[in-house]
């Protein structure tokens, strides 16, 4: 198996469904950072068959709960001094700001305002735009 050095301080996003790793990688803009990052794709997994993993040698200020829209089994491990100090699954957020409204008639398409989607159905992961009320079903980034 391919070896990737373990990290000292940062985080490891594990149990990412196969193929979703690259999307998270781009969503977190990891292609533009200066610190060490590793995207591992198609890693054999007992539970999942195949999975993706992302290792980041830095702190991430963004709330990662949004990753739950892909899958709530994703595991986020926080690493300090080479050890896992915290491990959690992202929780479905009530409000999401990081996604743009796709409705071309929405005011957010012309005005410089922060997007806001409010959770309306936890089961179906449906969110509604605060402005135009367009409903979106989120299952990928």
């Amino acid at each position, binding site marked *: 198996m391919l070896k990737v050095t373990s990290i000292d301080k940062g985080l490891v996003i594990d149990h990412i469904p196969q193929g979703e790793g690259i999307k998270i990688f781009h969503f977190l803009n990891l292609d533009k950072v200066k610190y060490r990052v590793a995207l591992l794709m198609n890693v054999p997994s007992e539970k999942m068959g195949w999975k993706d993993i992302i290792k980041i040698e830095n702190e991430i200020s963004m709330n990662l709960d949004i990753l739950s829209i892909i899958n709530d089994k994703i595991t986020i491990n926080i690493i300090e001094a080479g050890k896992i100090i915290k491990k959690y699954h992202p929780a479905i957020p009530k409000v999401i700001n990081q996604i743009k409204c796709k409705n071309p*008639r929405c*005011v957010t398409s012309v005005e410089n*305002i922060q997007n806001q989607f409010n959770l309306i159905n936890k089961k179906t992961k449906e969110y509604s735009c605060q402005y*135009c009320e367009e409903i979106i079903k989120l299952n990928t980034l």
Partner: protein
Amino acid sequence: MKGKKLIDPSDLTTTEIEDLIKLANQIIQNEEKYSKCCENKLLATLFYEPSTRTRFSFEAAMLRLGGKVIGFSEPNSSSVAKGESISDTIQTVCCYADIIAMRHPKEGSAYVAANASTVSFINAGDGGHFHPTQTLTDLLTISNLKGRLDNLVIGLCGDLKFGRTVHSLIKAMSRYQNITFIFISPEELQVPDYIKKEVLEKNKLKYDESTNLEEVISKLDILYMTRVQKERFFNESDYIRLKDMFILDLEKLKNAKKDLTILHPLPRVNEISTEIDDDPRAAYFKQAKFGMYIRMALILKFLGIEVD
């Protein structure tokens, strides 16, 4: 309701709507009494897209209350053309005006504006989203011509898929007792599923769908006509085949109740034949007048002005 902001018709409770209708009727009965009560008050009408009808209605309402009006009727001539944000425009206008009415082509613009406004705010239409003063106009008209807002069979005819006026009226009327809707439209332009699920089925409202106006017209207390636009059809032949079925003429009116009320948000194109205009059941021009009175009531309530 002083200082209130109106974005969506459901921002108002049924009691508040009742109060507005009551005040509008008091104004109708004694217009003179209200003709100076807004002296020293200024309404700003900010129209980011032209809608002469709605703007006139707001301005006439304010002027008939003795108030004054400033504003623009198309954004090209204003600072908006230089790229000013909605929020900045509103904050500036708040320095001058006591109340703002805004129309904007983008959905959700009213929410942005209302949040930026420090004075009373009325959404005069935000794209295909909300148009609360049209809905209030419809409610005042129905309440006056029918004497009630409950126990009614309401037929909605035309474009029921894209017509925001229709969706908004369905939502508003679903709050009253024993309302039955009959939706009359081509299959391509039926009421969207989310309205059926979220509004009709949730409130256990009775409704029926038909593609034939003539067949159902005898059941109706109210017939609300809307435009069927050519561009909503996939092809010319569908449009030609269907357009006449949704045009109201004397022939189709033959089986209608004697006290049917025919409404239309205007402007009409050809969906109501002009031969009907003289029929006592045609109420669409009265409806336009009611529109001005409900806006007068709204302005008074939102400015917190009481006249005794």
